[in-house]
């Protein structure tokens, strides 16, 4: 177990390094950092002095090491829009993003898991066709479009929920449902095929041969095994969720990191963009680390190797 842990930790650390490197490559090589980092309308003198400060003329490797060092300290430059450290700006929005993504994944697991299980247990029936059709639709619906439709119906027409903003549970409902749709659909499809695979396993027949109650068989022998591939997928879905939250937060004016990033892109406040994206990417790596641990808990064959 400790070797497994150490290995996964090493991989995660490497992934974080990779994320920082990608951001470095994108900002330094694809664009002119001075133009990216300074507000629109900066004078040529300001640009020149910023370039000198960054040390653009120095060897790339030296710049890279500096960049790593700054990133390690959480220094991504100052936001001219907010006039303080960019990292502070995004960090204080993080709880809202985590709340939204967490609610969405919980909803996705409950709705998608339930639907997938029901579909698999009713193989060949009308229910299965219906659930799978819904799941296909869920995967094909653009997040922001769904968000707009939900706002139109439930906020504008019915007035049940606010059209946007944050701060209360009622604010959370529509964005969480929007974001959870794709997740639910993906989980439902995966769990269905995974349950169908498990149903063919000999140990399910063994469980039936023991005369166990159907509930015991479904929970402990079928679902318990069918969830293993789902656990891996939750890691991938977390990426979709965190990425999707950028769009969802924009649609619902949810005060999270994603919205701050998009607002920053609009006014070209690049330090905030950089800090926000880095923060979310590192969160994603950490989530995957936790998911790997969860995987070990679910599957003793991995834990006790």
């Amino acid at each position, binding site marked *: 177990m400790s070797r497994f842990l150490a290995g996964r930790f090493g991989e995660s650390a490497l992934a974080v390094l990779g994320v920082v490197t990608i951001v470095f490559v994108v900002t330094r090589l694809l664009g002119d950092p001075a133009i990216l980092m300074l507000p629109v309308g900066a004078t040529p003198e300001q640009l020149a002095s910023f370039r000198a400060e960054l040390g653009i003329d120095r060897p790339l490797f030296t710049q890279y090491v500096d960049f790593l060092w700054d990133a390690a300290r959480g220094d991504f430059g100052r936001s001219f829009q907010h006039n303080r450290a960019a990292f502070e700006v995004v960090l204080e929005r993080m709880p809202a993003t985590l709340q939204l993504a967490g609610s969405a994944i919980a909803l996705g697991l409950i709705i998608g898991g339930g639907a997938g299980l029901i579909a698999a247990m009713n193989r060949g029936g009308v229910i299965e066709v219906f659930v799978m059709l819904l799941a296909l639709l869920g995967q094909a619906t653009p997040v922001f479009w769904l968000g707009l439709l939900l706002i139109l119906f439930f906020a504008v027409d019915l007035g049940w929920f606010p059209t946007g903003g944050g701060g209360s549970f009622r604010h959370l409902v529509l964005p969480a449902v929007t974001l959870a749709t794709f997740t639910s659909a993906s989980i439902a499809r995966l769990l269905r095929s995974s349950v169908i695979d498990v149903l063919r396993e000999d140990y399910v027949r*063994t469980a039936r041969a023991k*005369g166990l109650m159907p509930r015991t068989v479904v929970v402990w022998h079928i679902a318990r095994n069918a969830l293993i591939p789902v656990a891996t997928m939750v890691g991938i879905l977390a990426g979709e969720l965190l990425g999707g939250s950028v769009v969802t937060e924009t649609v619902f004016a949810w005060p999270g990191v994603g919205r701050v990033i998009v607002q920053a892109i609009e006014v070209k406040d690049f330090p905030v963009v950089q800090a926000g994206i880095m923060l979310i990417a590192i969160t994603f790596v950490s989530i995957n680390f936790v998911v790997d641990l969860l995987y070990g808990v679910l599957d003793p064959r991995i834990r006790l190797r």
Partner: protein
Amino acid sequence: MSALLDVRGLRVRFDTPGGTVHAVNDVSYTLADGETLGVVGESGSGKSVHVLAMLGLIPRPPGRIEAGEVIFAGRDLLRLSEAELRDVRGGEIGIIFQDPMTALNPVLTVGRQIAEPLMRHRGLSRARAWARAAELLELVGIADPGRRLAQYPHQFSGGMRQRVMIAIAIACDPKLLIADEPTTALDVTVQAQILRLVRDLKARMGMSVIWITHDMGVVAGIADAVQVMYGGRIVERGPVRAIFKDPRNAYTWGLLRALPDHGRRSHRRLHQIEGQPPDLTLPPEGDPFAPRNPFATPRCFTETPPLVPAADAAPGHLVAAWYDLPRLLAEREGAR
């Protein structure tokens, strides 16, 4: 000895896209209290399917039981509700499956898997069930049961896993133990150990056993009676000595010839039965073995032989054949 199990006219079908598979055709037999019955046949002979069907363990659909009665300890299993049948399975009837590598749940501890039927059928508390599970592990010959209970199946060897399966099957003192090819997936030496273990357990606990196998040799070592199945039918049945010394069905005879040490000269070359197993999607017509049978008569191809007492044979020796195998064998011997 009174009958513990009485199977009458059991008929099982599978509806597949390729047609209806006639998997089990009018199988009837009785199993006495304390008797060990060896059921022999190749895959597709219906030997496993018919026991799975009577316990409600075949998937329905595509499977369906078309006709029959299975009287077990005074009740017809086929007429029981699913809930009543659940009480029988794992309680009064224990089952061991073929492949111990896949028959155990990989994510639950061995202890939990043994304790489950005890908690379900005996209403034991978790702690009591685990204590009993430890005794059972010891009973099936696994050392250090306390530690082993907390382990997972992948930490056990194949033979050890099959012992665990046996512990699960006998956990609730079943009246009947069904062993569905329990040694097929194991090494020869391990096979012998498992065989001995079941024989000892049977002697100790006094249960009846149905041992399903494709290997006549295994049957010789454990069974009181042998029942040979082919194409979903019983083609011969009788006391183990009678079947081995005086086979009356050509298929049984073929199986015995395929055994390594059978016959006077032990270095005689092994005989294989030529031909393909029957296509069970066709409606049964004639003796299903006829196309592969060197002794087949014209009648074998048109009319299905009934299972009747064999002429001049041991009591309880039944055969389904239109031909007189001892006479044909004697003629063949004489012609040499």
